[in-house]
């Protein structure tokens, strides 16, 4: 089976990086004029040469987003099921070498968390775990999906990469979306940040979206962890990945996130810092490159930033989030994956969205649209 690796191997990191930084104002202007934009246009739009054109980019981004998505923002919330993890990831609170007590929620605890989340108004939940295949495996996920699918319209998952057969098993149990972030497309750097555990296999992770596409997933989410490597080059590879996947798996939807490295207890300092202006540039560049891709922003970002960015191309937002298992009700003090920046409640965020002339959307999917395997 063809995989993204074939495309990936034909692109060299250093040459790609140089070609982005070589883009000129003329390249940016051409990219802005075009109505169909290609990967070279995307490079121009994320390049330093595009910074003086940020207002133009924002105007186009807003219009494209309105045309496609309307005046609406999708609401979702993470539900951390487990912080058990066998991987060492230098930037993550759940890293195996972080000596803290671990827990995986049992069915009763999950339902306690679900009750709180439902009380906030949510109908779309994102299940999150570390990677602990001895206890948090396909069978566990299947049970969780069966347990919670009567209570949600849309279930997404951000867990360890699985095999095609695992995804095929889980989809009929109510799984709509899987997020799997490459973290970085820089292979040496990837190895440095993932020295131990199954996650250290760069290629297996790189080919996860292919496996999701083969399994017929409705939606998949891509992204890199911004701060590990040069964000421009990493974002180019994300866009390259997206282009490949759209053609290869034409029945799947795609979303992109752009998490910036956040502090956690004893954590890693970012190697590359991306400022707010650059994040706006990246959001607009993705929108100009692809008017259909969903763009999501989490509580990693600050109140002020999230208020402003709603209108610039974002289509989904989380709010009231906890990043630790049991964080909503069962054990609020358990180990969190990262510190959040925006602590406003779901209803406060919804009010902020309305105030800006947008409608917060809680339900945009229905379990009945997934064919249950009986």
């Amino acid at each position: 089976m063809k995989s993204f690796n074939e495309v990936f191997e034909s692109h060299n990191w250093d040459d790609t990086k140089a070609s982005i930084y070589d883009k000129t104002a003329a390249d940016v202007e051409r990219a802005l004029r075009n109505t169909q934009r290609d990967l070279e246009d995307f490079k121009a739009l994320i390049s330093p040469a595009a910074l003086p054109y940020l207002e133009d980019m924002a105007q186009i981004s807003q219009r494209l987003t309105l045309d496609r998505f309307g005046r609406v923002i999708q609401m979702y919330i993470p539900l951390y099921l487990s912080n058990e993890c066998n991987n060492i990831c230098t930037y993550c609170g759940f890293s195996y070498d972080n000596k803290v007590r671990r827990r995986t929620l049992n069915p009763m605890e999950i339902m306690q968390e679900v009750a709180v989340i439902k009380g906030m108004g949510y109908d779309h939940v994102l299940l999150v775990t570390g990677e602990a295949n001895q206890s948090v495996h396909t069978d566990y996920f299947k049970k969780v999906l069966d347990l919670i699918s009567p209570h949600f319209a849309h279930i997404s998952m951000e867990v360890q990469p699985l095999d095609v057969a695992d995804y095929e098993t889980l989809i009929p149990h109510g799984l709509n979306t899987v997020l799997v972030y490459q973290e970085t497309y820089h292979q040496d750097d990837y190895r440095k940040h993932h020295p131990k555990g199954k996650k250290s296999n760069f290629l297996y992770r790189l080919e996860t979206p292919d496996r999701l596409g083969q399994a017929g997933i409705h939606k998949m989410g891509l992204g890199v962890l911004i701060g590990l490597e040069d964000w421009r080059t990493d974002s180019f590879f994300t866009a390259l990945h997206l282009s490949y996947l759209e053609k290869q798996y034409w029945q799947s939807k795609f979303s992109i996130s752009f998490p910036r490295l956040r502090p956690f207890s004893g954590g890693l300092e970012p190697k590359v810092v991306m400022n707010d202006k650059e994040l706006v540039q990246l959001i607009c560049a993705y929108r100009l490159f692809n008017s259909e891709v969903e763009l999501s922003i989490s509580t990693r970002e600050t109140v002020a930033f999230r208020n402003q960015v709603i209108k610039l191309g974002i289509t989904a937002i989380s709010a009231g989030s906890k990043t630790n298992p049991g964080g909503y009700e069962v054990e609020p003090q358990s180990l969190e994956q990262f510190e959040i920046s925006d602590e406003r409640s779901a209803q406060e965020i919804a009010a902020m969205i309305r105030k800006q002339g947008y409608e917060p959307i809680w339900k945009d999917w229905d379990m009945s649209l997934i064919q249950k395997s009986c």
Partner: protein
Amino acid sequence: MLTIADQTFSSRLFTGTGKFSSAKEMESALIASASELVTVALKRVDLKGKDDDILHHLKYPHINLLPNTSGVRNAKEAVFAAQLAREALETNWIKLEIHPDPKYLMPDPIETLKATEELVKLGFVVLPYIHADPVLCKRLEDVGTAAVMPLGAPIGSNKGLRTIDFLEIIISQSRVPVIIDAGIGAPSDAAKAMEIGADAVLVNTAIAIAKDPTNMAIAFKMAVEAGRMAFESKLGAQTHYAAASSPLTAFLDEEF
């Protein structure tokens, strides 16, 4: 008056409920449009909740709900979704949307034909969203579709009647109402669609994302009425050549 299945409509402007900045704004625009058939995505409606926000704002005697199957990828899923919609919204009307391609939302002709055939057998009034494909329209008629809904341009694109040559063929040979769906970006597009003889148009994005959706809805209402009136009054045919001052056949009138 337009008749589809056993229902008559005095408005030929059908509308949608997506993309509005609030349910209240949607309500105001839809009332201003005087639309009597309003499509609602099944996936957006809380089928379990008694007091769904969208439905709550559509409770008017003149508004008929047209649930749509947006989100399904094949005939099997569509039939299941339609049955659910019938139960939840208490209507046997269904706007059949099968677009397995989530990027451009292009309708799948093969699955749409299959689903239409099955849904008609199950007693549904089926309004399928399709490409401007004249042969597919005839095939859908053969299996009992209540109307056809060919696209003017990619959905949400506001590009107008890009498929006009095919729409004209469809209109000229259709035995069921032709509702032009998708791509209508401006009232002038809607007027044009009515002028060429469409039975109705469905407009959503152009109204929902306007700066003033309510006034835009009124503009579309007027355009649809104007276009229909022009069609019924028989437009003069366009000519692309000037009347020759020395007609080629003048010699026939000359005396030899």
